[in-house]
Every structure is written in C-alpha cells, then in structure tokens.
C-alpha cells in the first residue's frame, strides 16, 4: 500500500508537467495580443512594445515557459493582466463561491441518488422501478443550464420565492447565501444524482444476484439487514467511483451553472478571463483545475483500499 501511494504520487510529476505544457502552449499560441488591452488603439508602436516587455510577452516561448514553470513550482502563477494581482489570489477569492455550490450540489445528489438507486434495485422490474428509471434517464439527459433556466422561470420569475441570480459569501451571510444557492444546487444536483442513482441501481442489482445474498436470506436474516449490511456495503465501491467523479466535476467549478446564476466562482472567472484574454488567469485555472482532478482521482483510489479490503495494490 505504501509503495503504491508513493508510486502514484511520483506519477503525478510527468502528468503534471504535461498538463502544464498543454495549459501553457494552448494559451500562448493563441492569436491576439493582450498588450493591446493596455494601450489606447491609436498609441504609437513603441508604447505597445514597452507594455509587451513589461508583461514579459517579448521573450521566446520556451523562455517564457521555463519562467512560468519556475514560478509555478514556487506557487507563483503570475499576475492577472486584468485585476493586476496574483493569479493565486484571484483564484482564492473566487473559489469559496464554487465550493459553496459544489458542497451543496454533492449533498443534494447523494440525498436523491441513494434512495432512488436502492429503491429502484429492490423493486426491480416493477412500476416503481420503471418510474425511477425514467427519472434517472431524464436526469442524465437534462442539460443542466436549461434546468437552471427553468428553475429561475418557476421559482424566481413566476413565484418570486428565491433570488434568480447572484451569490453572497457563505461565511458572512449564511442564510442569504443558502437562499441564493438553492436553485444552483438543484441544477447541479439532478444530473449528478441521476448518474449516481444509475450506478447505485446497477451495482445493487449485481450484488443482489450473488450467492452470499441468497445464503443470507436463507439464514433468515431480515430483508433490512440483507439490503443494508450485505448488499449496499458490497455495492459501495462502484458507487464511490461515481461519487468521486461527481465530486471532481463539481469541485473544479461548473462553468455553465455559474454563468446562468451569475455566481462569481472559478467557472465564471474562466469565461470572463478568456474573453478578456487574461492569459495568466486562464493558464493558472487550467493548471489548478487539472491538478485538482489528478489529486481527487488519487484520493478516490486510496479510499477504495480503505473501504474494500479485497483490493490490494502492488
């Protein structure tokens, strides 16, 4: 186990390097000169050249990559062109909003998915199962930003119960934050709940056919014990895989949902930075989100080993 962890940690180095290269190359090779944003359109070329030099845009791309990489290793992702402060600071100030959405979205997804998946599996091939399967299929196919817009139409525009957009800091005004977050949470939660419920259902069905479940039943155990102690516990590794995927997707920010609800999280920051050609922020966000995904993946893999003693890593 220990050597597995070390090997997985070492593997992060080449993947991280590759991620960095892609993030850097993609943005640096794109057309358009960000220096033009800092001078008036009729400015003399010398002034443009000066700005370019100040932003470090005049050096060769390899030199710039080396420079950027050295900074990254020291935790310095550069300075945002637009906000004129470090990219890490820009990220840190946007992330709490994304985190608020992610935690609630994951919570709602789990709250819906587990009962739906379990009931659908227990009631396999009944009317209830049919209904829940449709609920799942529709959830997987429902574009989340469309759901978001429909929710705004219903709960904000028609009924006026909830605010339609914007977000406040959870740590400063928790109740207002929750009111703002309910619709985004549901928008994020439904698709992910459907995904998780589908996995819960299929892996429960898989386990329910096993011999040891028949044995457990023939021993006279209550159905409750059979379902929760024997089936759910054994189905849990595959459910955890999807939970890992869901957590990963939400923790790196939902671009469209933040866009619909005007939440100033990292998804919206990404879209805004792209349109402002704020290269350092776009690069930084590409790198940070990709590395988050790499680490969450590692975390999920290690969790397996804790939950399922049958898994041995060599």
């Amino acid at each position, binding site marked *: 186990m220990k050597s597995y962890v070390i090997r997985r940690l070492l593997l992060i180095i080449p993947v991280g390097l590759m*991620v960095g290269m892609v993030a850097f190359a993609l943005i640096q090779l794109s057309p358009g000169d960000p220096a033009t944003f800092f001078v008036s359109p009729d400015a003399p070329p010398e002034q443009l050249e000066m700005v370019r030099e100040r932003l470090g845009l005049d050096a060769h791309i390899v030199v710039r990559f080396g420079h950027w990489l050295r900074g990254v290793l020291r935790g310095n992702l550069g300075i945002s062109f637009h906000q004129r402060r470090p990219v890490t600071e820009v990220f840190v100030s946007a992330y709490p909003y994304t985190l608020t959405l992610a935690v609630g979205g994951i919570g709602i997804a789990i709250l819906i998915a587990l009962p739906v998946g379990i009931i659908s599996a227990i009631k396999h091939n009944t009317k209830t199962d049919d209904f829940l399967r449709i609920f799942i299929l529709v959830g997987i*196919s429902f574009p989340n930003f469309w759901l978001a817009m429909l929710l705004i139409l219903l709960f904000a525009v028609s009924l006026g119960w909830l605010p339609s957009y914007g977000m406040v800091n959870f740590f400063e005004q928790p109740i207002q934050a929750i009111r703002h977050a309910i619709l985004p949470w549901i928008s994020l939660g439904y698709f992910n709940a459907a995904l998780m419920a589908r996995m819960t259902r299929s892996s429960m069905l898989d386990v329910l056919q096993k011999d040891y479940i028949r044995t457990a039943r023939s021993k006279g155990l209550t159905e409750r014990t059979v379902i929760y102690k024997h089936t759910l516990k054994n189905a849990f590794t595959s459910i955890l895989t999807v939970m890992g995927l869901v957590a990963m997707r939400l923790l790196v920010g939902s671009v469209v949902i933040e866009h619909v609800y005007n939440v100033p999280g990292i998804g919206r920051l990404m879209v805004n930075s792209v349109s402002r050609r704020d290269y350092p922020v776009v690069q930084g966000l590409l790198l940070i989100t990709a590395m988050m995904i790499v680490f969450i993946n590692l975390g999920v893999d290690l969790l397996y080993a804790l939950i399922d003693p049958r898994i041995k890593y060599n």
Partner: protein
Amino acid sequence: MPEKSDSFLLNIIYMVRKSRLMKIGVFLTLLMILLALFAPLIATHDPYRTNVRNRLQGPSRENWMGTDENGRDIFSRAIYGGRVSAIIGFNSVFFSTFFGILFGLLAGYFPKLDNVMMRVMDAMMAFKPIILAIAIMAALGPSMRNVVIALTINYTPRTARIVRGETLSIREETYVKAAISMGASGWRIIFKHILPNIVSPIIVQATYIMALAIFAEAALSYVGAGTPPPTPSWGNILADGRAFMRQAPWMTIFPGLFIMLSILGINIMGDVLRDFFDPKTNIYEQR
C-alpha cells in the same frame, strides 16, 4: 435478452423489436436527424429574417414557438439549430473515433509507444472538458469548425483508452498469437483480428460521445464560446432567451426541449446497446 448476431444491423433490429425503451430511443434520434436533414422543408420561416414589429411574440398559429427579440421565428431557428448540433455532433464523433482508434491501436500494439501516449492521454483527461474546450475556443476563435476541433481534442483520449485496453487483451488471445507465429504482419493482425473485435465497445462509446458533443456545443454556445451568432444553435438561442426570461419564457422553454429530447434519445440507445453487447462495462462520462 440477447440473441447476438454477427451483423450489427441485425442486432439493432432485434433490439428495436424486443425493447420498448429502444423503440423510444431510435424514434427520438431518427426524428432529430430527419428534422436536421429536412430543415429547409420543415422550417416555417427564414431563421435569419428579422421583423422588429413582430418581436417577442408568444406562440401562435403563425409562430408555433413564438419569436425572439429580433422577431425571428423560434421554431425555425430551433430546427436549423438542430442542424448545427447534428453537424458538430457527427463530426466530433467521426474525428474523435478515428483518432481514438488510431492512437489506441498504436499504444496497445506497440509497447514502446504505449507509455508516452498514455501519459499524454492522462494529461488531456485531467482537464475538465468544458474548461479545456473554452480554452481551445479562446485560442482558435469562435466558429463551428473550431467547436469540432475542441470537442475532438476532448473526446479522443476517451476512445483511445478503450481501444488500447481492448487491444491489449485481444493481443494476448491464442488466435492472435497463432497468427503472429504464422508470420502475419502487424497491420494484418490489427485489421483482421483486432479491429473487428472492438467494434461494439467503440460504437457504444460513439453514442455517448454524440450525446456529450450535443450537450457541449449547446453549453459552449450558451456561454458565448461556441457557434457564433447569427447562425442559430440551440445554445445561443437559449443564451438570447436569458435576457428576456420575464417577457418571453418561450425563448427558454422550447430550444431546451430540443436539446433534451435529442440527448435522451441517444442516451437510451447507448444504454440499450451497452447492456446488449457487454452488461459488465459501465461508461460514466464527465460533462
């Protein structure tokens, strides 16, 4: 349920006859394809023609799904938007499947290439698809062709991984070893033995990519990084509707319905196909 036949088409016909769900999936998918193919015949109006006097009108006999802020007919725009989705979807599926098979076969068949190629694929898959797509669109500029490029870059590693895995396991089969010992060339083995055996997982994967691509195109256009206006796309019609939700909810309701029904149809087909070909595999994709 299965009575597997060697012919893929026979299998599909069998599934449609046996499964009610598959009937719904095939019906929705065919409907969307027909609407896209015959858009000029079906659309009731010119999707580009503005008519300011007729702006933000609700659904009526003249404009079935109402009009937008420029007085353009939503129904006609949605039908033409389906064309955009279909074109981008099919192209993304084609190219990502083509490159996915190519890279997957190379990595799976030539161990020397495997490590390098798979590390690159790992790195590509570490990016969140929509974030990577937005960055690519920023680099290339907004156009339909560039959406296809962005989505192809996103989905190729997924197919490549599956093809590589299958190739690795088929390479160990006795019949392949026998063919190698008889002196068959690498290409012959790839084309005669490996490719025919990986067709079904690739097709299942392709249906999911189609659904993902339709969603991704709509999402990209919605945030303004996809199909550029005035070309109608389901995503940018919805984006237009965002500002007029109070006055013109039909701009929000109808185009989204098109997106959902087409993704639903494809997802149903994908699920039934997957259960049929390989009940054990589960492909859970990221959006």
